[in-house]
């Protein structure tokens, strides 16, 4: 690692802390403005007034807003994200359980969608107005406009219920689900490590559909934006010059145009990845998979403040880290960017 890279990384740390602090403050404020009463959410409508008062006190809701915030910040500084009110478990344990599932899903989807999207964008620019270009336009439009929950249900109906080609919901079949120890939380890794015959294949069978559907979203996004960027380069003088010097279309595309949009493509990939990490909630719901998106959404409905703050903090940290790393990668890939 060069000294320059190290300096950039170190400079990012205060930025990370400041961003997370601001994020906490905003989330805490918005949550406390919510009309949802977390105590009533927990105990329901029939409980007695004395239970209500006791639960409000236990949740710290009878303290002033600033005191609640202060208590929370002190606890977070000690690495304690509190106990989720709706699952009854430490938020840290909950996040350690659900987050690897999301990382696994999002990373596989990005790998497929990102590579496929860039390849399709290159093909579409190399063969403009050909069949492949039309195909790419349809794919990118579909990836951006078809709701993933609908696509998920239809895919389950066809490939799982009718054709029996893939596994159904959850991360594993019931035969494996409660026998394999989920040490790392990554189902592929845990199934492989377990050495239980058939477990890995079962995990793959359950991952195929959600990964493909999320990948189609990623693919649509990456293809559309990369294709536009490449098209923008196509009319520039350096392209004309390269062609005039006798370079072939493919050579111009890969050796001249592609490096010029690589920084942009990296940014698109990073943003898509960040969106996949927190935006997989619909897929997680339809496929009944654990994940940070569904965890956060359910926590929001339950006004489960510690879970909301913990999950937001984690997602926020991911955004900041991914953005920081992308900036670094873009600088390394494109020396024109300061």
């Amino acid at each position: 690692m060069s000294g320059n890279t190290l300096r950039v990384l170190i400079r990012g740390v205060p930025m990370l802390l400041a961003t997370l602090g601001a994020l906490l403050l905003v989330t805490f404020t918005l949550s406390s403005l919510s009309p949802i009463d977390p105590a009533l959410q927990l105990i329901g409508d029939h409980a007695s007034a004395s239970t209500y008062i006791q639960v409000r006190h236990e949740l710290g809701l009878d303290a002033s807003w600033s005191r609640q915030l202060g208590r929370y910040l002190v606890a977070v500084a000690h690495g304690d994200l509190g106990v989720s009110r709706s699952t009854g478990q430490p938020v840290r344990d909950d996040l350690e359980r659900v987050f690897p599932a999301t990382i696994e899903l999002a990373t596989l989807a990005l790998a497929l969608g990102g590579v496929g999207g860039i390849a399709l964008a290159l093909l579409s620019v190399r063969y403009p107005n050909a069949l492949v270009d039309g195909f790419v336009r349809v794919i990118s439009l579909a990836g951006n406009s078809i709701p993933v929950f609908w696509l998920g249900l239809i895919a389950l109906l066809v490939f799982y219920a009718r054709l029996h080609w893939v596994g159904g919901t959850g991360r594993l079949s019931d035969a494996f689900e409660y026998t394999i120890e989920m040490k790392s939380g990554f189902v592929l890794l845990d199934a492989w490590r377990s050495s239980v015959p058939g477990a890995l294949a079962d995990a793959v069978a359950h991952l195929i559909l959600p990964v493909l559907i999320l990948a189609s979203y990623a693919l649509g996004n990456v293809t559309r934006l990369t294709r536009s960027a490449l098209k923008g380069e196509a009319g520039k003088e350096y392209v004309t010059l390269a062609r005039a010097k006798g370079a072939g279309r493919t050579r111009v595309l890969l050796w001249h145009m592609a490096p010029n949009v690589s920084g942009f493509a990296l940014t698109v990939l990073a943003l898509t990845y960040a969106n996949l990490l927190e935006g997989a909630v619909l897929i997680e719901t339809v496929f009944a998979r654990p994940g940070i998106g569904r965890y956060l959404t359910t926590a929001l409905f339950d006004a489960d403040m510690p879970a909301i703050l913990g999950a937001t903090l984690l997602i926020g940290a991911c955004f900041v880290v991914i953005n920081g790393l992308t900036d670094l990668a873009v600088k390394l890939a494109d020396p024109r960017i300061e």
Partner: protein
Amino acid sequence: MNPPNVFVTAQSLDDIVSLDPAEGFELSSQQTFTAVYQRLIQPDRDQPARLDPSLAARWTAGDHVLTFDLRENAVFSSGNPVRPEDVIYSLSRAVKLNRAPAFILNQLGWTAANVDASLVKDDPHRVEIHWTAELGTALVLNILTSPVASIVDERVVAAHALDSDAGNRWLKIHSAGSGPFKIRRYIPREALVLDANPSSPAGAPRINTLILKNVPDAGTRRLLVEVGDVDMARDLGPDQIAALGASRSVKLLEFPSATIHYLLFNTANRDNPALANPALWEAARWLIDYRGIAEKLLRGQFLVHQAFLAEGFPGALDDTPYHLDVARAKQILVRAGLANVHIRLSVFNQPPFGDIAQSLQATFAQAGISLDILPAEASEVYSQVRSRSEEAVWLYWIPDYFDANSTAGAFAFDPADGTKTLAWRAGWHIPGLSALTRAAALESDPQTRISIYRNIQTEVQRSSPYVIALQARTGIVVRSGVQGYFQGVDADMAYYDRVSK
């Protein structure tokens, strides 16, 4: 397909707050308590008005005291014997923890300060339960059938106590009971895995493993049961059930549910004086399209029911004197001089409440009453009702235990001691009806109790700020080979022990 000794259900488990019987008060938790714990006595599953001995072999009643002889040789899933100490610990712990369902036991006059003195061990197999409240033996027995009165294994729970939590943190996700199942593993929001407890005094279940899977999406639940990856799917919408109608591999089981849906006018809201006018209440009774909602709008999920005791409860009125009659409602309003009535109607922002509210809005408008629908999250609606700030609200009611008093004590009871019952929330001051409800609670003769409750229901049905309209039905889809599942009318009455496939 799952092995024949493993039964898998697809349902939403997102509601579970706790699997500690002293704390859990949600539908999925309550249903689990019936599988995992036993109480001293429990309603008979076929005739719930009859009480069956459960962990108690027999009981005798005295003046404000019940003496229970525990079943000989009864053991918890841990192998520990069931002792009077366990009964005393369980009931006392529930009162002292003071979580959501504690108010059920508080009705006996029990507080954290006096509960220990109310529970007395007579000998190694006998325990006395005393109460101070003015309640008859019949009602006290029914209160003791509620899930909060489940008996936990004191030795196991106390061994897991941290600080002063009485084992609450541990029991949220573990079990220490004597029911036909025990919790193997609970992964919040993912699955609840139960193993058979062959030594249960209730008898060993027919299956070895019961897996309740959290499948939040109803469309996915339908596919899973259709393919056969789960044996049962709960909470399917009418469209999903209709779509499965042609399939031979599944069948629909239908059970009445004790959930009652009703409209409440908040007469304590002085900003809108029309709300306290009995003519408005009467007109509203003729302005609901009961049949249209039950049979067309929400087909198959509801029955028309116009009394506060759900069908299936002893003494429930089953007559339905009201139907949509706009002309009649108009006459009532004109006679009372009620014109240009505007009412804000609070409803939960989830199905089916929006559909019901829109139907009300349309029919009330025909009689010149304008309803502004205010959809809100459930706890926000509860908050409005508790502070009596709403004008009108569409709510549902689920009894807390299998006794008419659970519901009558809410709808028709506004005691002078300031207890904030549903009647208080509606601002409905009813000394006469409250006295009648108290008399019914004290009465020990079942027939006399039933007769009093019938009178109270008739009065509430005729003139009250509630318009009781619908009773829910539970539709459950199972694979065609599934036998033995039964669900009773009350929330906790889900019986998996005789299930086979």
